């Protein structure tokens, strides 16, 4: 998400802005293959499991804060909770694409400690797979849990014990449904050609269009300037700031706004609040994404990391403008929750209390640690590769 032109190339081919991981370079594309297919989830009831105490060590590898703060702080929180003798926190390099050797070494080093029984990689960037293979050569008792894998999904499902990522396709359905519940009559989808060349984002757009059709919502695709393009981020932000009032003028106040790009979230929220529109969810759903910057929320030392307090602050600011109930986001940063849940799952698995393919146990782990409601689906036919949707809260 660095707006540097040099990185544009790397971004384009790999993580790319907001697809939240996605499926690495390759076939792209999530579960569905035929025309517009709206994903379906099985009904899962959470089932509490006594996972026991952490009487072994867990390794967590995340990016640095300049890569993305959520995962880093999530791991930090685990270190605070269990102590640095129980949780080993490591980071992968910022330019992980060229320095896979470092990623591999960091994982191997955690695996060297015989007390380490589980390793959580968030996000599972390229380099994770060879590391897992190398570790497996020496130890097969070690559990690997991958958050938001960016490696080939078939391979990662084969080698890692457990993978979980946000379901961007499913969000196509849930975001529109959220907008509907807020009373939307029109839905504006900001994007640009580079994003639409990405399979998963294009598919989500098609799903959104279909669900909008089913719900009598007018679906409008607006092309914004590409932030990596000639006008830079500033240009695309400017465009959003100017376009939102226009759209509200044409489609009325009950217009929901959505953008596929991270850097557009702040101006989009700001302009929507100004014009009185609807904003069901960001591209990467988390209270800390876009809202603090757009609303000027000061994050004090004691508030840092407390999602409930941050949400409260956001709601207060929105209330001050009289637009309560017209904005939404996920309850918390889902990547942080995933890391914490993975720790619980690792405890349960090591103690033989649960199976990682047991959806009801996973659901319990996520809901009990994050205090959030989630829905789970399975990626393709890989029982250990789960897709997740969290409940959207209205602010």
């Amino acid at each position, binding site marked *: 998400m660095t707006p540097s032109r040099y990185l544009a190339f790397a971004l384009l081919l790999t993580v790319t802005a907001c697809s939240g991981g996605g499926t690495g370079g390759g076939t792209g594309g999530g579960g569905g293959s035929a025309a517009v297919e709206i994903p379906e989830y099985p009904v899962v009831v959470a089932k509490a499991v006594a996972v026991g105490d952490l009487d072994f060590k867990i390794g967590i590898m995340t990016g640095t804060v300049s890569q993305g703060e959520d995962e880093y702080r999530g791991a930090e929180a685990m270190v605070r909770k269990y102590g640095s003798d129980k949780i080993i926190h490591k980071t992968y390099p910022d330019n992980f694409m060229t320095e896979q050797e470092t990623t591999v070494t960091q994982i191997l080093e955690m695996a060297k400690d015989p007390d380490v029984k589980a390793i959580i990689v968030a996000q599972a960037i390229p380099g994770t797979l060879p590391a897992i293979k190398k570790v497996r050569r020496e130890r097969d008792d070690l559990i690997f849990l991958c958050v938001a894998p960016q490696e080939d999904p078939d391979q990662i499902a084969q080698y890692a014990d457990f993978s979980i990522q946000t379901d961007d396709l499913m969000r196509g359905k849930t975001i529109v449904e959220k907008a509907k519940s807020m009373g939307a009559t029109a839905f504006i989808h900001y994007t640009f050609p580079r994003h639409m060349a990405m399979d998963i984002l294009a598919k989500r757009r098609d799903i959104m269009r279909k669900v909008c059709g089913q719900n009598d919502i007018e679906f409008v695709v607006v092309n914004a300037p590409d932030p990596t393009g000639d006008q830079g981020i*500033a240009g695309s932000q400017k465009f959003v700031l100017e376009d939102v009032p226009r759209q509200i003028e044409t489609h009325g106040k009950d217009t929901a706004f959505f953008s596929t790009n991270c850097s557009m979230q702040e101006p989009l929220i700001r302009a929507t609040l100004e014009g009185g529109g609807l904003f069901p969810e960001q591209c990467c759903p988390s209270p800390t994404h876009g809202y603090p910057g757009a609303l000027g929320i000061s994050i004090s030392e004691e508030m840092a990391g407390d999602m409930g307090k941050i949400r409260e602050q956001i709601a207060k600011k929105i209330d001050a403008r009289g637009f309560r109930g017209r904005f939404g986001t996920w309850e918390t940063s889902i990547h942080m929750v995933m890391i914490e849940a993975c720790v619980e799952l690792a405890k349960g698995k090591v103690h033989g209390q649960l199976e990682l393919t047991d959806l009801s146990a996973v659901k319990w782990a996520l809901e009990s640690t994050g205090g959030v409601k989630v829905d789970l689906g399975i990626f393709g036919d890989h029982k250990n590769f789960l897709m997740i949707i969290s409940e959207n809260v209205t602010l």
Partner: protein
Amino acid sequence: MSESKSPIVEKIREGVIGFGMARWIIVAFLFIIWIVAALWTDENLGKMFGDCLVRTGMNGVLVLALLLPVRAGNGLNFGLPLGIVCGLIGGIIGMEFAAEEPFGIFATSEFLSRGWSGFIFAHVVALPLAALCGLALGWLVERVRGQEMMVGIYVGFGAIAGMCVIWLVIPVKSQELVLPIGGHGVRQTVLIDDYYTRILDHWPRSAEEGASAPEALLHRVFDFGTMEPVEAGNAKPRTRAEARSWVPHRKYTGFFVPVGVLLYWLGMCGLLALFLRTRIGVAMTAAGSNPDFARSIGIHVPRMRIASMVASTMLGAVGILVYSQSYGFYQLYKAPLWMAFPTVAALLLGGASLKKASVFHVIIGTLLFQSLLTTSLPVVNTLVKDSAYASSLSNLPEIARLIIQNGVILYALSRVTGGRK
């Protein structure tokens, strides 16, 4: 025949040849892109030219920073990131003064953080720091004669990597600077929207934007009827802070001239050109072009070379401030790691070599290189949009940049036959 040629024709002929083959090729290439854009895409050419000017002004000072080291015989200053880092420090320290308790010890000062005064304060902090760093770099480079460029590259890389640690531990308090979840350390990209975004680009402002009479008059002169005035909703200042801030939401619909930034850059170019004619300037050039001769007439050659590095580092600091105000962001951490390379390429594209460079080279090089980058990307993107291969083909401009940028540097390196044979 030749004696019948008029002096004007002869002058033009000389000028055309003097401009150099490489530059004519780039110019021709640019024209091809523009013609393609005009015929086969619905890109707004006028706006595209305006964007080229913005990008030129944005990068101009950074390119200018390379001039003096070349003239003083230090070669291409790949240590430019050192200056850039100083500029970023200045910018961040300035912005911190908008916080309730800057660094936990100072008092809030809107004056030091926002608007023109804020932009100048960023310079005030950055320049002495850059002078010190430049002095150290110059001292080092003077001791590693023959390997200046290699050492420069690694000093630049090291400065960026070292600063990553500093950014993490710097005790900023401003909510707009601090990392949102952890609550300490500086963010990776810092938005300068309400501080001085495009303060140079959008000068002179119109009367509606609150400009004084002379400024508004200037605005009218340079308004080609293509700038939409600020929409009412955006212009109304709500707080004192916002009243001081710069309103960036101006829209261009056609050709425009970013007067302020070009003036700032060309002004510096002019000053530097004047400096090169002064006694010290001439001495500096002499130290570079013929050190033995320079020594014999009493010029302290090492001192000249160190001075050139100091000036270069300071200009690098100013350069990143100008760049960022136009970009709308300070990019920290690893973002400036590669910045020296396109900058060097621009200078060389302008016709400079490892030993010779002039202000003219800076101006032409920046204009050509940045125009090339600015126009090729959108044009290629529109052209390949509907192709099945769009996701691969849209990388073409980036690949072309890699090849052109480094090809130009390679060409310059191979042109001077160095060493003994």
